[in-house]
């Protein structure tokens, strides 16, 4: 196989790192919604923390995507 084929396989393998980010985001938002259903008046005050958590978790998934792009383009 030539180099391009290996590059595509490598990029595909690197994207598997986003599985963890997806699961983490699901857990995060699920817990937030569960807490918000039990205590709706306190949900607004925790919205900022929700977005901080979302950004930090998503960033790790985006790092996997960046590595995939770097593999794909030399």
């Amino acid at each position, binding site marked *: 196989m030539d180099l391009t084929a290996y590059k595509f396989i490598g990029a595909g393998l690197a994207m598997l790192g986003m599985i963890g980010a997806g699961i983490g985001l699901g857990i995060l938002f699920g817990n937030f919604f569960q807490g918000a259903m039990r205590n709706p008046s306190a949900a607004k005050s925790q919205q900022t923390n929700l*977005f*901080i958590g979302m*950004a*930090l978790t*998503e*960033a790790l998934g*985006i790092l996997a*995507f*960046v590595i995939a792009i770097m593999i794909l383009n030399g």
Partner: protein
Amino acid sequence: MADPLHQFQIQKIVELPAFEVAGIPVDLSITNSVLAMMFAVGAVILFFALSTARAAIIPGRGQVMAEGLFKLVDDLTDSIIGHDGRAFFPFVFTLFLFILSCNLVGMTTYFTATSQLAVTLTLALLTILTVIVVGVLRNGLGFFKLFCPSGVPWPILPILIPIEIISFLMRPITLTLRLFGNMVGGHIVMKVFAGFIIALASAGVLGYLGGFVSLAAVVALTALEFLVAYLQAFVFAVLTCVYLNDVVNLHDH
């Protein structure tokens, strides 16, 4: 299939001659990235000038938006940094507005300035240098207590302090890559689905239906990208406030 990476290429629009500064060639020609950033900054200045020109007690629509943005960032600095937060409000507000306007200009015109690693790296370095300088000016050598959380039993410290230092040094890297990755990824996905529309629609009746599905996907992705544009600017501002809080309120660390 069209190349989705072509949208990120820098093209010079006005070629200015390069000159040397201490042996390093500096090229200040106007590229599409520079133009996008100038347009974004101009749009923000114009919006704020127009909406606060005849400021009324009962605000009009533009003034409501401007005051809403102001309140958003002011509440951030106040709740995260605390009483001393007001001093950092101009920096965080400028950062938030610059990233938001560059993202929105990228959604509506031809080029996203924040999809360039150089731009996001500069913003992240500015932020972390501000954090370090503020920390050293406020706490002197006590700044290094940032890497030594209170209430930790002393045998763990030799392991914990290098981990804390590495995690501090990762902050500008993750700031850079978060904004860069979100912008690049979102735009690549949009262009790939847009390519599907053309490729499918020219392939028979079933392909025509597939083209419609791709069009619906592009519309949904565009809405998502507007949300991501606002969210990434907000997250950058929030994380700047959190890092500033770490060094400003060092004793409560």
